[in-house]
């Protein structure tokens, strides 16, 4: 039972263009969502998060959009840079169930110069 799904295993984007990574979830009890970035042989690092009371959160080149009715969130990176090439994981949690995160399968982003 995959509660958080990232249906695109990979994405290739030209440098300077927008990268859009998508994530869908099935559990309506999730109320907090996060994106993590992972380089090979390293642990994931936190990128950006959004609470279910918002529909958008922006931090520099990174923006996360949340559509609760569609149970869908997306991460926009603009402009994309070669250093953004990594695996991006979407994660979700329910505040009332403590800190455990439910992760998607990840999307490998490749930004080409």
């Amino acid at each position, binding site marked *: 039972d995959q509660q958080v799904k990232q249906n695109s295993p990979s994405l290739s984007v030209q440098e300077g263009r927008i990268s859009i990574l998508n994530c869908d979830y099935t559990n309506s009890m999730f109320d907090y969502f996060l994106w*993590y970035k992972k380089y090979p042989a390293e*642990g994931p690092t936190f990128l950006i998060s959004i609470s279910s009371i918002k529909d958008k959160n922006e931090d520099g080149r990174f923006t996360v959009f949340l559509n609760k009715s569609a149970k869908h969130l997306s991460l926009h990176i603009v402009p994309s840079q070669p250093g953004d090439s990594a695996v991006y994981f979407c994660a979700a949690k329910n505040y009332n169930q403590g*800190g*455990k995160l439910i*992760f998607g399968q990840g999307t490998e982003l490749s930004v080409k110069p």
Partner: protein
Amino acid sequence: GAGVSQSPSNKVTEKGKDVELRCDPISGHTALYWYRQRLGQGLEFLIYFQGNSAPDKSGLPSDRFSAERTGESVSTLTIQRTQQEDSAVYLCASSLGAGGETQYFGPGTRLLVL
């Protein structure tokens, strides 16, 4: 310490042997989590500790898996009678609390069961 550390970084073992993985969280972080990532898959929650509360063990895949944490410091994840399907990267994370606080991950232990 600057971040979460894990040891060993790599572990190769034979099927049926026991293994112990160690995690040193960031000092002052009351919450500690264990996840694993099998090849080509996302991170799978295993267990989490929050202060002196009973740990949430809901993600442990079988009774061969157990974890301990001493106070708010080091944690060990033990896998008994390892199987080939236990091969994965085991990741530890810590956070200040268990709410919306960011979880900081260690580099992981790569376990290969032959």
